[in-house]
């Protein structure tokens, strides 16, 4: 497999370039930031990802953090945590390929390759709204779930190709809508607005 070359922002030196082999499950990537006075401490990021896009997303997070030098240290730490979480969820979706039909004893289908791919794409958009869990859907597919202060939302990528989203406060009739792949960011925003309101 071709290794991905991770490069930092323009202020970086060649020392900031590292090669990450996609086959490494626990690839350690080190970034040395720009010279003083903008220099931050060396940050170490453990990337739990095998897929190039997940690794790319982590790099993108770091790039955006590096664009605000004043808060760089804190932002890198927060974004790194969020990136690690997304990467771990990505891997959890990947692991669902080992599920068999009737994995829950209720006759559910295992998530298809298609459903897993769509779920992984949506995870990469979930930069501002961290999912609480990702699960194989009992309906056949992958569920990306969010919850906060008693409120719940999810985006469900079904094996049928449909993507459905819901929000619920647990008391009233839940809202349900269909999501087009190109609209997943809008669905995430709607869920985020609901569970944080």
């Amino acid at each position, binding site marked *: 497999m071709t290794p991905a070359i991770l490069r930092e922002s323009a202020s970086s030196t060649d020392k900031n370039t590292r090669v990450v082999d996609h086959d490494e499950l626990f690839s350690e990537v080190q970034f040395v930031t720009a010279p003083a006075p903008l220099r931050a401490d060396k940050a170490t990021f453990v990337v739990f990802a095998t897929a190039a896009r997940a690794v790319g997303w982590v790099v993108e997070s770091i790039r955006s953090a590096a664009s605000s030098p004043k808060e760089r240290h804190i932002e890198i730490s927060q974004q790194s945590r969020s990136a690690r979480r997304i990467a771990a969820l990505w891997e959890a979706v990947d692991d669902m390929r080992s599920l068999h039909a009737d994995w829950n004893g209720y006759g559910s289908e295992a998530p298809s390759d298609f459903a897993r791919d769509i779920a992984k794409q949506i995870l990469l958009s979930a930069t501002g709204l961290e999912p*609480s869990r990702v*699960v194989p859907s*009992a309906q056949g597919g992958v569920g990306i779930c969010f*919850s906060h202060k008693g409120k719940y939302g999810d985006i469900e990528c079904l094996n049928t190709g449909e993507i459905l989203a819901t929000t619920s406060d647990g008391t009233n009739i839940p809202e349900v809508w269909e999501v087009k792949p190109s609209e997943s960011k809008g669905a995430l925003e709607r869920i985020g607005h609901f569970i944080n309101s």
Partner: protein
Amino acid sequence: MATSSIPDYPEELLINGRGLDETFEPDELLFYRAPNLDERGKIGSVDVICPNTSVNRGKYSKPIHVLYCSFPKFINWFVLELHVRDVPTELQSGDGKRFQFILVHVPVTHPDENYAHAEIRALVDQQPKKKWSAMVEKQFRQILADRMQLVPRERMNP
């Protein structure tokens, strides 16, 4: 004869020549299993399958019995419960179609004998429907998930 590989399989789950009982009182509990819960200690629509949502009847089983299916595959899963009255009686799709929901007693013999097994089924114009509107299904699943509560540990005795 107990048709199960589980030693000391619960006697109450065996059919033993009993017929169907289609009387579901509103206070009867229904049990469902799930592999994990969120921070609220609840499940979501993604954890519920429909149509023909399988449950165990509280009238004929204990909560833990829902984990005995394909023993010991699900023994570490969570058990959730809801009352018969919590199952929505009707939902309407965007195009105005009305879906009614009914409980049907469906004892099973495979993979393990289970007299307590029941299913929540949907009717459209009084006719059973295997495929519903995906949106109605989703709404139905979320309503069930919202109304299910985790069975407390002290009630999980065999």
